[in-house]
Each structure stands twice: as C-alpha cells, then as structure tokens.
C-alpha cells in the first residue's frame, strides 16, 4: 500500500461526526428541546409513565448517505465535504422530527386527546388546546405557569403572525382574560395533583 495518514483522517472523521450531530441538532428544534438519554449497554429498554404503565422504547434507525465516484472523490475539498454533510444533516433531521411527530400524533390519537373537529389554528383553538393539557407552575407560584410550546409548520406560522397583527387590543385583552381563567383552573388542578405526591400510611 501507499503510505497513508490514517490517524489524521480518523481525527477529521471524528470532527465531521461532531459537526454532523451539531447540524442535526440545529435542524431538530423540537427533539433538541427534549432531554436525551444514551443507552450505554443492552439492546432493549422500557420506561414507566406517570400512571405507572410500562412501555417499551422502540429505537428507530435514521440514516442518510452519499456516494462519489473515484474521479469526484479525488477532487473533493473540505468545503465540499462540509456542504455534503449539511445536506445529510438536513435529511436526517427531517426524518427524525417527522418520526417524532408521527409517534406523538399516534399516541395522542390513541388516548383521544385531540381537539374535537380538528379546527384550523386560531386563538380559540389554542385556548381549547390549553384546556386539554397539564400545566405545571414553577415554585408552586400561580404567576409562573410553564406554558407549552406550540409547534406549527412554517406556512401556518406565517398565518399566525398575520392573525396576530390583525388582532385588536380588545381581542388580545379578551384572549388574555380567557387564558388567565383557564390557568386559574389549571393551577387548582396542579395543586391537587401535587398534593397527591406524598407518603401515606
């Protein structure tokens, strides 16, 4: 064989892997906001829900790839490789985010926690959604609700912005009042839930 520089190539490959992970993370805002765990050994895993139900964790492989001819490979620059890696990251991130939302939708459908009639996005739909989820409060303080994050498609996001721009001060005031009313109720529910976290005889 012709003398090679394997150690350097391996180090470059490691750097590229780190870059790929970081690029995927940038492109997966939803998954990146969730705490992640690594399973260090074994091939199976289970978790338990708040309601003491044990469920299997199903791992799904995400992959992407690229190929080059010998001719192309012989002329590749570092910039070309990084550009290709960004394309791979885009592809993998898409698979991961879509996969995660698909799983969530399936679970939500199963338990029936969807807004009846599947209305399009609107202030009322948002409030309806708020009514249907658990809300926690930091330091048990009514003024510090941990509000859920809303994920919408880019097209939908534009619409939301337009709606918000069109809304009058009165509309906003009305929305806020309704939201606070719901949060009052959610606070009561939260305190009741938290009161159950205790040792009994």
């Amino acid at each position, binding site marked *: 064989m012709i003398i090679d520089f394997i150690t350097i190539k391996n180090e470059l490959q490691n750097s590229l892997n780190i870059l790929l992970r970081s690029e995927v993370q940038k492109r997966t805002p939803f998954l990146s906001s969730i*705490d*992640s765990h*690594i399973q260090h050994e074994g*091939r*199976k895993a289970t978790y338990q*829900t708040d309601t003491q139900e044990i469920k299997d964790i199903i791992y799904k492989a995400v992959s992407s790839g690229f190929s080059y001819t010998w001719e192309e490979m012989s002329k590749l620059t570092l910039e070309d490789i990084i550009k290709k890696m960004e394309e791979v990251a885009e592809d993998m991130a898409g698979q991961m985010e879509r996969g995660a939302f698909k799983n969530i939708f399936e679970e939500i459908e199963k338990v029936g926690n969807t807004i009846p009639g599947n209305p399009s996005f609107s202030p009322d739909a948002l409030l309806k959604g708020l009514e249907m989820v658990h809300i926690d409060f930091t330091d048990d303080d009514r003024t510090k609700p941990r509000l859920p994050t809303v994920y919408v498609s880019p097209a939908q996001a534009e619409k939301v912005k337009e709606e918000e721009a069109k809304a009058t001060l009165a509309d906003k005031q009305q929305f806020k009042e309704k939201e606070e009313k719901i949060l009052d109720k959610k606070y009561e529910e939260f305190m009741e839930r938290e009161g159950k*976290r205790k*040792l009994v005889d």
Partner: protein
Amino acid sequence: MKNLWKEKVKENWLIKIYPLFSKILPSQKMPNKQIDSSQNPFLKTTIKHWLDNINELGYQFPFCQALISEGHSILHISKHNAFEQGKDVITRDKHGMLCAYQLKGGNITMNSWNSVIKAEIEKLIDLTIIHPSVKHNERHISYLVTNGYLEDTVRLEIDNLNKGKWQNNPLNVITGGQLLKMFMSISTDFIPQDIKNYQVFLDLYFSNGKEFIDEKKFCSFIYDVLKINKDALKKEERKRNISASILYTSYIISSFKKTENHIAIIHCLTLLISYIFALIERYNIPKKYWEESFKVVWQEIIQSGLLLEEEVVTDGKKRSVTSIWDGQIGIFRRHQIMSYLLAIKLSQFINKEDNWDSLKSEKNFYNEFKGEIKVWGEASMFVFFCDFFYHKKLYNNETVKNGLSVVLDGIIKYNGRNGQGVIFSPYYDITSVIRYTYNLLEEPVRENFKNRSFIIKSIIDLMARYDMRESLEKYWREITYIHQETFLPNENWMNFLWRCENEFDGDGQAKTELVKQTQSWKELVDEAKLIDKKKIPKILQELPFALPLFLLVYPHRINSNFIKYLDEITS
C-alpha cells in the same frame, strides 16, 4: 499405601532426596504443556522484560499462581513484606510436602549473601513452620527464589553448605531463568493469537503506571484469555485459563507496582476477579478449579489495600498534591483514597479479616480524609454506602443515617426537576468527568441527567429499611419526578461484564421507573425488606466480601437489590 507415603514424607531422608526424586524444581515439572517459547519470542521478551524490572513484591503474586498451577496449595503469603520466620510463601505441593520460599529481587552477590540473605536463609531452613494447618515440628523443603542470578561464589557456598551443615534440609534455588520458564509455561496456555490481541496486551503492559487502567481494553483482553465465550472447554482447561489470566494481569499491573499505584492495582485486580466470576457463574465451575487462584488474587488486593492505608496515614495529603494542577485535581485523587479504603475495610469486615476496624485507632485515614469526598457523578457515590455500612457496624451509631439524607438531597438538588442535571450517570468514570470539567473531552457529552438517577432507588430503599420516614416524606414530592434507572443483564453472569454489548456475550434491558405519586409507607417498607436472591450471582453469595469492591469498580451495576444484600451481609 497413602498413609505410608505420608509417614515417609516426615522422614529426613525423604526431604533430602525429594528434590532429586521428583525433580521438584518447578521449571522441571511443568504439568500442562510443553514449553515452546520459540512459538512466541515477542511474548518471551515481554515476560523477560517484566521479570527483569520488578522486585520480589512484584513477582510474589504471579509466583504463587505458578505454584498453584503445579498443584501446590498456598498456606501462607507474607503480608506487607513483613519478614516472617524467613518465609515469604508457604505451600503444600501436590504430594503433600511442605515447602517454604524466600523471595529476593535482583542478583545475589557474595556481599548481599553475607550481609543479609544468609542469616535469613538460616531462619528459613532452621525454624519450623508455625501455622494452623501444619503439624508441630513438621519438616519442610526450603527454597531461595530470585528473579536475578546467583554469583558463582554464592552458588559454590550453597553447594558446600548443602553437603555439610544443611545436608538434612538442603536449600533449593530458583533463579530468574527458571522463573521465566515457569511463567512462560503458564502464559502459553493463552498466547495472544492475533496481532490486535498482542497489541492490546503491549498497550496495557506499557501503559502509564500512574493512572487507572483502560477498563475496556483490559476487560476485552481478559475475556479472550479466559475464553468466556467458548462453551466446550474442559474444567482443567478453564483452570489453566484462570492461571493464564492471573499471570497476564501480573505483567500488566507491573507498571502500577513500579509506581506503587495501589488504587490502580486494586481496581485492575477487581476487574480480573469479576471476569473470573463471570466464567465461574456462567459455567458453574466447581470450587476446586478456582479457589486457590482466587485466594492469591484476593490476598494481593488486601495487601495493596494495606500498603495504601499505610501510605495515606503516613503522608497521604502531601502525596496527593504533586503538581500545580492538584489545587483542582487533588480532591479527585483524595476521593479515590476514601472510596477504595472504605470498600476494602467493608470487605475485610464481611470476610472477618483482621484489621477491618483499623479506623478505631487514633491516627487513621478516615479522620484525615473525611472532608475530601467529592461528588462528581453517581459513580462517586458508592463511598457513601460504604461509609454508612462500615460505620453502622463499627459504631452502631444513629447519626450515620444522616449520610443517606445527604446523598438524596444532593441528587434532588442537582438532578431533580429544579436542578441542572449535573450529576453524571454511573457510566461516566472519574477520568471522563475531570476531562469534561476542564473541557478536555474529545466529544461532547450528548445526554443530560436532569430528572434521572441510577442510585436513588437504592437510597430510598435503604432509608425505608432504616425507618427514615420523616426524611423521605420531606423529599417524596421531588422524588416522584425523578426517573429511577437501572440496567438488568439478561443472565446473572453478565453482571460481571464491563458492558453487556451484544447478543452472544451479554445483553440486557435498560429500565426506567417512576415511584408511585401517592405511596403507602408500609408498602414501601415491605418492598424494601425484600431481597431477590435469584438476581444475586451465586458466586457473590458464596464470596460476599467481594461485593463492595465489585460495586465500587462497576458503579453502573449498583442497584437496590445489591445494596439491600450488602446491608444484609453487613448487619
């Protein structure tokens, strides 16, 4: 016929002719394989390099293993290099003959012979052995062993003495060349077959003696030496593989011996016995095939513990600061001292060994280092369990229970819902965490630890066993948010694998549980009292004193069941 033989053994004439009759020099009666060192000149060179660069303490441990391989039973190994009746090692060979060895390092010159060694050899020969399993005035065969050579003048004097003054109990001599043959003969039961294996061995052998061993590399190498995945081997082959694993480990730990890195020695030998346990547990190997070897390794662990204890009691604090970086890193070093010594003390207590309660003495390591515990991850927390069990036994004091609340409080504060998730899971060792602290990791840590804990269940169960309801009640709401994690290997023997990584050699299931939000105290206590003995490997039930060191070195195997069992065996 047997009795007649035993009677004859006692007689002087037999002592005299026995070495000639049985060609007792170990190098001349290898039972296992023909020595063909030409098959692996590199291995021979490596072993020779090792043998040339150690002192008598360095080869005492593998020498005992070599004797075991020849059918000897070890009766006594001198502790802590104390000169005991001139005998460093006392054995009974396979014919029942009593043998006493004095071990020396380096060449024996006329000067060293006259000034020190001759007087010691006279004691070796003249003083009868006092030992519970030796009859009063029973004769023994005397051996002088050195990893060097004898000057001609010394050899001639020994010959003359053997013909004259010592003729009733002549001195036998084993020199470096014979030792090399002994060690080679055992090593050839496992010769690194492929270059990758040999490269791993050399990497380990030439590793930096000042740090910990690379666990992954060492475990993978020992796994191959022990042939854990070969299921059709005979028990005798298993026995020889155990011998080989001990020999290879002796070579590997020589760099630690040279730097007197006792913690790394204990760590490495604990990995070794864990892999031997994996083999015993998996193939249900009877005691007679491994007990003697295990005893030798255990003795070496305890001896290293004693040396460590002596070092730290003398000037441990001073020795833990050796560079400008030790203002930061010294505390991690001191944490290791506490962890290893407390685990050893606990093992000594369980095994009813002397010296388990050395902390009762006025000057002891605990008083020196008790403020030096540094929580850097869940792997660092086993020291609290050792502290609890040890002091519970030593002082039977209620205040030791406070330590459990401190650990629980730490987990909730740092990994609970309001924490930052900074306590690493037990899969991260001290080196990784120090690297992380100073941004020296090659790759970022790609997970976080918020709302997670591997050891919280052990703490909760222990607190329930010790009726600490008030403390638990205070924390229960926060506890309900923390996911209790554990890893369950598919079979008990897999507990001893460093990682259960594939379907052939080990596999298991990662499990995450949440406690009940509204929990009955009675139910909690009842569950905490239960120990599932089926999940405790049989070998650990047979040798429970190995459990503290096993859990210290394998913190990712700590689970509530093991901790409850540890509580039971220390109660």
